[in-house]
């Protein structure tokens, strides 16, 4: 209204126009601000350092970043050897990553310093959409939250050559007694029936635990958090392992995964326990898919079925910034889409196994040429992984001391007391229990 009350005057029109232009200007500024705003930048730390894995990851990130101009994910490959010290230091200094690959015991380390953000809703949505294999998400579900989104699984299986078993006139062993007989028969003439490590190292933790889960000694904690290591089932597993270790090469006390694989690839070891030998067998040995055999880890004669150790590798959300959290969730959801997920898994074909039901059927996974070539073996690996367990993460309750027990390789150390120091299995397990109990008290 004009001051005279006779309708809008010239001055009012100017004021209105000015307001209109101002509003339009603000709107334009806001819109242009949105259009040209910097994307939300996410830093992803993973421990897949070999060049071909870094390259595959970069291809996926480039594709994601192109399809999501408002988000930019950048990878910074790290090493498992240092990340236990490096990540806490980085978070303390305020320059940690926004997304971080993990295994169950590493999550407990970072959860302790409050660096991990729960991902309950995202896990629920992704589970509804893709269906997580229960064994892969279970190690991250405790204290009323889900602490990481499973990304890929690794499970130990028994590897052998079909021709070697056929020539020796033996079937694939299913029980421990069959396994020992097979190992004895496959040995000789400069060959070893089996190659098992006895190093104080993670690989030995894994192979020993593969036997423990097959003798009924999967749980190393009681519900109240006290250690439940010293029991007849554990002693039985160690006792049997030490018998097989005698049929292994004498240098096995210094073995890690690579030495066992080389032993198998060179046909020096008749059988080994390993996550996968496909890559090495294909590139450094015969590469004859029809001759490569894989089976579940044999079980104690008193048990009904085989189980194994499995490492569900996952991705943690480690940023407190809400915008980054939202962007990270978009990325994780994109990664688990079957069209993308198979290409993520085949960054190391024949080693990384799917954690989702639709991922296990994805064309993007099965169309990889190595996966196609070794399809029966990979199907067996996936089947074995369904019954995977991990020490310290079997009871639905997770206790912080598992981080130290795992880091100090106490399962492997117990084996060394038997294989190297000549102790009885019962004495070594008793000492192992005492040491674990000491750690649990602290």
């Amino acid at each position, binding site marked *: 209204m004009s001051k005279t009350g006779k309708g809008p005057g010239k001055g009012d029109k100017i004021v209105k126009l000015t307001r209109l232009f101002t509003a339009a200007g603000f709107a334009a500024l806001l819109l242009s601000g949105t259009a040209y705003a910097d994307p939300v930048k996410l830093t992803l730390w993973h421990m897949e*350092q*070999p*060049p*071909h894995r*870094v*390259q595959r990851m970069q291809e996926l990130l480039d594709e994601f970043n192109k399809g999501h101009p408002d988000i930019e994910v950048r990878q*910074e*490959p*790290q*090493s*498992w*050897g*240092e990340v236990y*010290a*490096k990540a*806490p*230091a*980085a978070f*303390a*200094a*305020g*320059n940690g990553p926004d997304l971080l690959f993990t295994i169950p015991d590493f999550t407990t380390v970072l959860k302790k310093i409050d660096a991990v953000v729960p991902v309950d809703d995202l896990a629920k949505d992704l589970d509804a959409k893709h269906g997580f294999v229960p064994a892969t998400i279970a190690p991250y579900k405790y204290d009323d939250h889900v602490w990481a989104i499973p990304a890929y699984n*690794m499970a130990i299986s028994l590897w052998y050559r079909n021709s070697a078993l056929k020539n020796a006139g033996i079937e694939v062993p299913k029980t421990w007694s069959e396994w020992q007989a097979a190992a004895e028969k496959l040995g000789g003439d*400069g*060959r070893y029936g089996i190659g098992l490590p006895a190093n104080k190292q993670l690989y030995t933790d894994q192979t020993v635990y593969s036997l423990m889960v097959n003798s009924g000694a999967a749980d190393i904690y009681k519900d109240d958090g006290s250690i439940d290591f010293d029991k007849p089932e554990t002693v039985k597993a160690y006792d049997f392992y030490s018998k097989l270790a005698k049929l292994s090469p004498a240098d096995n006390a210094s073995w890690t*995964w*690579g030495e066992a*694989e*080389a032993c198998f*690839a*060179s*046909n*020096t070891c008749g059988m080994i326990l390993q*996550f*996968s030998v496909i*890559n*090495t067998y294909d*590139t*450094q*040995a015969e590469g004859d898919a029809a001759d490569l055999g894989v089976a579940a880890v044999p079980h104690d004669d008193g048990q009904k079925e085989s189980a194994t150790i499995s490492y569900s590798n996952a991705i943690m959300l480690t940023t407190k910034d809400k915008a980054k959290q939202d962007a990270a969730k978009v990325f994780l959801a994109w990664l688990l889409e079957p069209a993308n997920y198979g290409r993520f898994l085949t960054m*190391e074909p024949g*080693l990384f196994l799917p954690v989702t039901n639709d991922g296990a059927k994805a064309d993007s996974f099965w169309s990889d040429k190595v996966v196609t070539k070794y399809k029966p073996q990979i199907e067996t690996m996936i089947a074995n992984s369904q019954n995977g367990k991990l020490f310290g993460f079997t009871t639905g309750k997770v206790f912080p001391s598992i981080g130290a027990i795992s880091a100090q390789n106490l399962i492997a150390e117990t084996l060394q007391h038997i294989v190297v120091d000549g102790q009885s299995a019962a004495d070594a397990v008793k000492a192992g229990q005492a040491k674990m109990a000491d750690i649990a008290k602290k």
Partner: protein
Amino acid sequence: MKRSWRQATALFGGLAAIAIIIGLPFWWVVTGSIKLPREIIQRQPTMFPHSFTLQHFEKLLQASDFPIYLLNSVIVALFSTAFTVLMALPAAYAFFRMEFPGRNTLYRTILLAYAFPGVVVLIPLYGLFAKVGLIDSPAALVIVNVALALPFSIWMMRSFLATVPREIEEAAVVDGAPTTTILVRILMPLIAPGIASVAIFAFISSWTEYLFASVLIVSDARRTIPVGFAGIIGQYQIDWGLLLAGATAAIVPVVILFALVGRWFVSGLTEGAVK
């Protein structure tokens, strides 16, 4: 002194045994790097290659970031070496010639710092460097490498300075030369073998440093050889050919350095050892 044939045989036999013990691993690594994968892992190892391939080197140089790691290592090692020598020389001279209260105590304390395990300061140092924005910077590695190498370098350099007759310095003083001139024009040429020894020590310390490089460097493009190489090898599945090719390539710069200044290094060690 003339040796009997028994003494000569024992001497050469002993030297040959030592040469084999030291040389065999190098031979194994270098020859392994040109073998085909199946020959590398075969049950009966071959002392002399039965096959020949450069595929591991091709993969190393084309499919991995090894050349970048190599360049980073060279840059860090050269700067670390230069700063170590530039700081060790005047510090050693000060400890050797200048009179100031607590000189001997300070000198011994510096050596104590050399015995201090680096891992103890790793995390605090990370926090400190993060505050000043040096994380993921080669400068951080140079600072750490110099700090690690300097105590022993000062100690070495002081021993070399002690071999120079005092009369030479006194003659320069009589001619009116200031301290800097004495150090640069008189002493440096006289203890050149010692400086070469310190330089080689600093270079190799930097070249092989793993712990700090693994934690203070975050991005792949700034990694040095020991850390980057560990990543290339992989954990669960090892490419042995790539590993051997990388190990061979990693020792080349050190071998070149020794070829250039090795003679000085040996004479430097002996001069420094005897006053």
